[in-house]
C-alpha cells in the first residue's frame, strides 16, 4: 500500500497531491490518501485516484499546523513502517516528511524526482547532481512538484472513506494565527508574454539597469530568482519559483540564474527558455531550449543594442 499525504490550503487540494496520487497509482498495490483537517470530508470526493481515504479531523487541524499535522499524520500512519509514504517537497511537506521520519523511524529521501522498483531518484547540489538510493521495505519520499503529471492523479472515483480518531492535540505548542495573502505588485508577471528574469549572476543592484533596459525594449517585465528578492533589489511579486509565482510566458530569458530546483518549479513550462550563464554545468541548461555561456555583461547590452 502506498500512502499519500493530501496537501490542501484554503479549501483547495494542491496539484502536488494529484501528482503523487497519479504516481502512486501507476506503481500498483493500492493507494491510500491521508486527509487531515476539519470539515474536509467534502474533499475526499476529489481524491478519485485513491482506493481509500483515511480521514482524520480535529479543530486543531483546521489550518495546517506544523506540529499538530505531524502528530496526527504519525498517529494515522503508526505501524505502517513497511509502506511507502509520499509527501510533497513543499513548505508543508518539509514539516511532515522529517516529522514522520523521526516519529516512525522510517528513512526519508528528500527532493525526489522519480521512483522505480527498488530505487528512488532525487536531486542534490542545487540540481547539479542526481542520486539514486536503494530502498527495500518502507520509506518516506518527499516529492518535488512538477516531477509527475498532475492529470494522472485527477481521476473520477469514489474511494472508501474511513474516519480515524485524531490523537490528543491539546499539548501542541504551535498556534495558527492567520493566512496572509501575497501583496499584488505593480505588474503581474504571470500575464506577460516575455519575461527577462535575473539572478545572482547580476552581482549588485546597480547592474539591474542593464536587464531593465532589455526588458523595456522587449516590452517585457523583469522577474527574478529568490536571492534578488531576499536582497530587496526587486519586489516579492517579481519572484519566480517554489515560493514565488509560476509563470508560463512565450519567452523566458534567464540571465545569471543557475536553475536550482526551486526556481525550475516556477518556469519550466515556459514556451521558449533562453539561458545566459557562464557555468556550462548550470542546471538551467537542462531545461532551456537555447543557451549561451557568454558573459551576461557582454550579451545583454548587445541584445538591447540590436533591438
Amino acid at each position, binding site marked *: 500500500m502506498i500512502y499519500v499525504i493530501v496537501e490542501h490550503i484554503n479549501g483547495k487540494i494542491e496539484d502536488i497531491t494529484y501528482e503523487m496520487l497519479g504516481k502512486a497509482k501507476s506503481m500498483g498495490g493500492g493507494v491510500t490518501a491521508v486527509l487531515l483537517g476539519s470539515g474536509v470530508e467534502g474533499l475526499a470526493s476529489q481524491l478519485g485516484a485513491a482506493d481509500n481515504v483515511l480521514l482524520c479531523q480535529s479543530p486543531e487541524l483546521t489550518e495546517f499546523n506544523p506540529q499538530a499535522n505531524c502528530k496526527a499524520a504519525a498517529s494515522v500512519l503508526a505501524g505502517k513502517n513497511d509502506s511507502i509514504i509520499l509527501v510533497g517537497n513543499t513548505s508543508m511537506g518539509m514539516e511532515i516528511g522529517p516529522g514522520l521520519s523521526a516519529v516512525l*523511524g522510517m*528513512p526519508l529521501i528528500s527532493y525526489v524526482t522519480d521512483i522505480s522498483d527498488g530505487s528512488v531518484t532525487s536531486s542534490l547540489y542545487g540540481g547539479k547532481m542526481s542520486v539514486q538510493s536503494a530502498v527495500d521495505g518502507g520509506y518516506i519520499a518527499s516529492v518535488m512538484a512538477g516531477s509527475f503529471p498532475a492529470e494522472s492523479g485527477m481521476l473520477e472515483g469514489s474511494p472508501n472513506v474511513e474516519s480515524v480518531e485524531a490523537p490528543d492535540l491539546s499539548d501542541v505548542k*504551535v*498556534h495558527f494565527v492567520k493566512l496572509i495573502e501575497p501583496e499584488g505588485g505593480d505588474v503581474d508577471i504571470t500575464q506577460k508574454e516575455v519575461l527577462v528574469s535575473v539572478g545572482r549572476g547580476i552581482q549588485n543592484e546597480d547592474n539591474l539597469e542593464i536587464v531593465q533596459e532589455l526588458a523595456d525594449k522587449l516590452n517585457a517585465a523583469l522577474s527574478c530568482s529568490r536571492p534578488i528578492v531576499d536582497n530587496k533589489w526587486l519586489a516579492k511579486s517579481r519572484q519566480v519559483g517554489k515560493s514565488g509565482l509560476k509563470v508560463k510566458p512565450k519567452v523566458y530569458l534567464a540571465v545569471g540564474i543557475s536553475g536550482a530546483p526551486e526556481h525550475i518549479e516556477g518556469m519550466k513550462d515556459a514556451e521558449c527558455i533562453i539561458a545566459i550563464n557562464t557555468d556550462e554545468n548550470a542546471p538551467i541548461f*537542462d531545461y532551456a531550449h537555447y543557451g549561451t555561456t557568454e558573459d551576461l555583461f557582454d550579451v545583454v547590452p548587445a541584445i538591447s543594442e540590436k533591438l
Partner: protein
Amino acid sequence: MNIVVAIKQVPDLVEELELNDSGTDLDREWLKFKVNEFDDHALEAALLIKDAHGANVTVIALDNGLDIDKALYAAAAKGADRVIKVTGDFEGYVSTHKAAKALAGVIGTLGADLVMTGVQAVDDRDGQLAVLLAHQLGVPHVTVVTDIQVNDTSATVHKEYGGGMIGEFTVDFPAVLGIQAAAETPRYVPVAKVRRAMKSTNIEEIGGDGSGASAGTEVTKMYKPETGQGAEMLSGSAEDVAAKIVEIIRSKGI
C-alpha cells in the same frame, strides 16, 4: 534569552563538482566549501533579535573537518557570543538523522529558548535538520520561516507557502526554527575583523554522539543530470550570440 544557531559548510556550487571513483558521492578532496547560504540568514535572524532585545547567541557546528573553524570565527566576528564545535565521528557524509542526534545531545544542555538552522542545505538527502532536531529535543518546530517577532515566552513567525502566501504562527519556547530568509540581508564582515576574532575567540570543543541514529538509505549512484539535453548552445562571440537571441525572440512573434 538564549539562541543557538547550527551552521554547516557545504560545497560551493560555483566550483566544478567531480565524482569519486565509485560514483556514489562527490570527490571531496578538491572541493571548496562555504557556509550554507541559509545559515547566514539564520545567524542574521538571531543577531537581529540580539540587536533589538538583547540575547545570547551561540553558534554550533559539527566538526566534519571542512574548515569549520573559519566559519565559526566569522560568526564570532559578526556578533555570536559563544562558538562550539561538536567533535566526534563526523568525517565525510553525515546523514541528517545522525547530525540531528549528535547536535541535539549538545544543544539540549545549552538552555536554548530558540534553536535556528538554515531551512535546508544543498547536500541534504535525508531531510531537513530543523524538524529532526526538534523531534530529538522534544520541542515544536516551524520551518521555511521568513520573519520572527519575539515575545517573553513565545515567538510569532511567518512561514512561507507557495505563491508568496504566508502562514502566521505563534510558537512557545523552547522551539526550533528553520530559517529561509532573515528580515535583513545577512551582514557582511570584513576580513580584518575575522582576523581579530580569531585571536580573541575560543572555539569550545564538546564531544557529540550520533551513533544509533537511523542510517537511512544507501546511495547506489550519483551522476550529473544530462546537461544541455534540451538546450541548443549558441556559439560565436557575444555579438553573434546576441544576434541569434534576437532572431529567436523575433521568431516567436515578439
